[in-house]
């Protein structure tokens, strides 16, 4: 899909605008994986068109 975003925060906003049903998932918390590196929180991490980006449920543990 095509989205316009400079960082992870803008990416999430753009995703929810395009797919409103994702709002509750994003609000519950997501980890963003950029080129294999898991970002559990950062909304200011830069993203570029050449990055491989995955969304996972927020990583937490015991």
């Amino acid at each position: 899909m095509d989205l316009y975003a400079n960082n992870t925060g803008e990416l999430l906003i753009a995703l929810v605008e395009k797919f409103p049903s994702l709002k509750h998932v994003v609000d519950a918390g997501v980890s963003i994986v950029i080129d294999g590196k898991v970002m559990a929180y950062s909304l200011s991490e830069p993203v570029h068109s050449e990055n491989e980006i995955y969304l996972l449920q927020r990583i937490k543990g015991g």
Partner: protein
Amino acid sequence: MALDNQKNREFKVVGTRPDRPDGLDKVTGRAKFGADAYATGMLHAAILRSPHAHAKILSINTQKAEALKGVKAVVTRKDFSTSVTGENWNVLENVMAGDTALYDGHAIAAIAATSSLIARDAIKLIEITYDIIPHVTDVDKAMENGAPIIRANAGDGSVPKGMHPNVVRYHESGHGDLEAGFSSADLVIEDTFKTEATHQGYIEPHACLAQLGGDGKGELWCCTQGHFQVQKVCAALLDIETSALRVTASEIGGGFGGKTAIFIEPVALALSRKTNRPVKLVMSRSEVFRATGPTSSTSMDIKIGMKKDGTITAGSGIFRLQGGAFPGAPMEFTAMCAFAPYNLQNVQQIGYDVLNNRPKQAAYRAPGSPMAAFAVESVIDELCNQLKLDPIEVRLKNASKEGTKASFGPKWDKIGLVECLESAKNHPHYSSPLLEGQGRGISSGFWFNHGGETAVSLALSEDGTAALSVGTPDIGGSRASMCQFAAEELGIPYEKIRTTIADTATLGYNEVSHGSRVTYATGLATIKAARDAVKKLCARAANKWEIDEDAVIWEDGCAKPSGPNAGSFEPMPLAEITKKMGKTGGPIVGHFEATPEGAGVSFATHIVDAEVDQETGKTKIIKYTVIQDAGKAIHPSYVEGQYQGGAAQGIGWALNEEYIYGDDGRLQNSGFLDYRIPVASDLPMIDTVIVEVPNPGHPYGVRGVGETSICPPLAAIANAVSNAAGVRLKELPMSPVRILEALENKA
């Protein structure tokens, strides 16, 4: 913060085994745990809990209870906030029932009285009118047509249409072409596996002492893995401002994830607010079992295809988890961890979060991962047996590596799975002979690990010692590691540093001690805070020497000129600088606040030998070896302890521990007599091997270790027992009854 680019660095303190700082406190009784708190005039609380698995609460009459001499207050749901939403609402609904009792043990009301005996007598006088409704406590039955609906409209919108309302969340991930993958296999095995809920079994029940005045200001002492979260959530549930509540974490007698959740603190605070007196609340062991957070129980379907040469051609898994009467069963982690050790071209994993009339689940070390490993690694073992292939060679052949695509999507960064498998292959345990009646089991395991919000402060004293304040309760020996980090950076002895778990008024927000994050994140923050302090120390020396700050370096605990051009000055030890710091610019404190990203994942391989008594079904674990990647072991004794602890808990989970519910939906074994955890005589000496593949996301290469150690045991033990008994066990625990049944069916 990236791995330090100091390839030839020789650590002086990190990697050694100094004495633990909390040892004397714990063996002499000086350590203050949750129930050790005392306040003048304090009251004692008791909670009335539902005896029914599922019932509408029609009325609550507290008149007789309130009339009992010594009773000072009663609280019910109406004493809490009515404006919380989202996960806070789920927490509140669990802390104190609304209009429905959702499980046996669900809190309905609470009393504060002048003694715990009076409080316990008083709760028996509370009259509740229940309308008992049908219940369900099995994950598969809860998904069937006609199953009682636990809560209508609790789904998050992700669940496929047509599923029962008890299915509240859905996960799907994977890639490739499953059909093509299975078609190209020489052997495909498909099977179903089940695990029952277990409890973390921490030795210390939940306990707290709360004080909350009419002005909305309060103090709370509690045993918890995350006192900043307790502060935040309690403030929300009681409609007070966050900073008005100061929370102090006591010493903790075990958590393992079970104390990341909140069960009694809001109740104690509400009672204190009503009585204007401190209120102490301590759970009994039975309450801990009935009404805290056990693991999910699971039902899992696995299908794996393999060629004769051991190449895995496809893998799929469907994972059904129940997390009690609330959304949150960690099915997405079960799904993502299941095939994580394998580089698969064709893979799919699906997860369902299912409501049941059981208590709200909480994490138990790596939530969801051990069960996934049990199912997948059992099928891998069966494929190896039938194709007569070596189980470690097969795992090496298909191993995830740096740059390969994970089963859940992203490419792996630097990981240590191959190193663990190679170490297992070459370990004397693997080549040691087995006696008749014994079987060997192998398993890989995986956990993500985590960073999280972290803040620390490192204050230097005039005598050259240092006080490190951290906000992460010590659940696994982290205070020792933090002292080692600080000692390494400052260049002063380990014994000169004291690490304290600071209260919520002292530091910025710290996320819960979970996700194996503390040595990684608090450790990283400690390094940064120490480097911040060092910068300030160098500045003081530069000022005294009247040279540029850039011309001063820090080495062996002293400020030194960086070279001959900087000037000829004797090294200035830390204590010399701090002795006069009040007159040379003021106190010297290093600090660091951030949400570090870059916690490295961790893999492990376990080797287990087991012996099964074919007459009684009893299993004896003969030999156990844990091999796990720690990135960099800061205090090897603690790392080894985590490895052994995860294995020990896995042994109990695999062989004996289970929540047993009756037909009435009530928990039948809410005590250690009938909920059998391993004791020392049940266990062999658990051998450990620390593999170190540095994590690129930490200055010293640290990876979390506390959780991964529980990921492989269920599978490794199941494989050992199955190989010893000559029949595949597919349901946990593998109690003597289950083993005898399997042997009978085989015959």
